[in-house]
């Protein structure tokens, strides 16, 4: 198995974010305001990309920041940057919203546990260190058309792998492979670029 990515040392902004989160957990409204000002554009851009609905995106962002406000104490240092954590909350809320908009989608009776990214090691930190527009585009360009389609239908449209298979008339096993191999290709590209 390949060696895991070498995590970079937490940056001053990471530390500042964590300090804001501590204040958030203590119920300081000013901290919520700071967090919003820092990440409002990231949050809204992702929410809008997923929902394609300005009103729904607003609701998603509101629910996400309120989720952070109420659950700041759950943030586990070392499991990811605050930015990663917030990104995952926004994505999770947005997907939840679009799935509820689709009546045919099976929904859990209660909210499912936090998305996988909430419990992953910090990967945003080291990736974000090299993230500029060219890097992002180059990483996305490593995807084949069918890989990109499968990944975008999952990440941005909230489709399950079964739904993707049906929509694209592709065997389920092929859809699984496209998602896994596509993500793997992007990772390899980023690793090569950071060495």
């Amino acid at each position, binding site marked *: 198995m*390949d060696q*895991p*990515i070498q995590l970079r040392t937490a940056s001053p902004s990471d530390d500042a974010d964590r300090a804001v989160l501590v204040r958030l957990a203590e119920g*300081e*409204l*000013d901290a*919520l*305001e700071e967090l*919003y*000002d820092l990440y*409002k*554009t*990231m*949050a*809204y*851009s992702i929410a*809008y990309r997923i929902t394609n609905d*300005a009103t729904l995106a*607003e*609701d998603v962002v*509101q629910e996400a*920041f*309120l989720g952070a406000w*109420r*659950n700041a104490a*759950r943030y586990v240092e070392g499991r990811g940057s605050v930015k990663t954590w917030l*990104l995952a909350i926004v*994505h999770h809320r947005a997907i*939840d*919203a679009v799935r*509820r908009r689709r009546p045919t989608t*099976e929904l*859990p*009776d*209660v*909210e*499912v546990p936090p998305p*996988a*990214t909430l419990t*992953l090691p910090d*990967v945003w930190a080291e*990736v974000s260190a090299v*993230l500029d527009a060219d*890097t992002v585009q180059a990483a996305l360009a490593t995807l084949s058309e069918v890989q990109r389609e499968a*990944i975008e239908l*999952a*990440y*941005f449209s*909230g489709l*399950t792998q*079964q739904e993707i298979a049906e929509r694209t008339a592709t065997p389920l096993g092929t*859809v*699984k492979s*496209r998602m*896994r191999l596509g*993500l*793997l290709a*992007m*990772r390899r590209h*980023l690793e090569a670029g950071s060495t």
Partner: protein
Amino acid sequence: MSDRGAVPDLTCDEVRELAGAFVLGALDPREEAAVRAHLASHPDGHDEIAELGGVLPVLAAGVPVVEPPDGLKARIMAAAAEDLATRSTSPAATAAPAQTPTSFPDSEAREARRSRTSTGSWLLRIAAVVAIVALGALNLLLQVQLNAAQSYEEGVAAVIDVAVQPGSLTAILTADGGSGSGLAAVSATGKVTLAMQALTPTTGDQVYEAWVIAGDSAPVPLGNFTVGRAGTAFFEGSGLPTTGSIVLALTLEPGPGATIPTMPIISKGVAKPAAG
């Protein structure tokens, strides 16, 4: 959860096959539960989950930038203030903040909430919530608590009257070195109106002194007041600066006439424009 069948046991190979779909959130609930169950019992055996998940920020970074609309911040702050007011009014909530995850609200719930929060400043929302919470608890409070709730409600209403005026600043005072929280508004003419609750009653010659700290300047006393058993207070002062950073603070002094605050600060907050 409804019965949708038992969560299947997965092999390590099956989890690896599902890793991409898992990190992308593309599994149905039953499949996702199965992967989570497997990972819980094999915590060190699936680095591929973290490796593939690490790519997600790149996907997120590739989306077109769209700025959120004006007013969203005010909605969020109002909702958080509502949450905070509920916590401070409910001892049970303070002891054990609500941690139960909630699903994304359906369209009816969101529309209902939007109609509540899309108009007016978030301070008005705070006032409404405080009033509702106080009023809702009337039947359960002892008389002294009833008086405190009514007194604080009236004080908050007076603060809101000032806060909604053009050019006003508002502050949420939260307990710092002691107990006590409340709201304050500074008018464009430099008049401060303050409503406090949950203060420790003063005894003897003790007074609470209100202070204003403008930028890096030394604290300036605004005036003092005593607090009875209800723990509430209403205070008005004048002569405040109306530009720049202003911090409002309370200290408990052994007697009137303090020119230097006696530490610790009991409660404090930063005054800023209500809208944002």
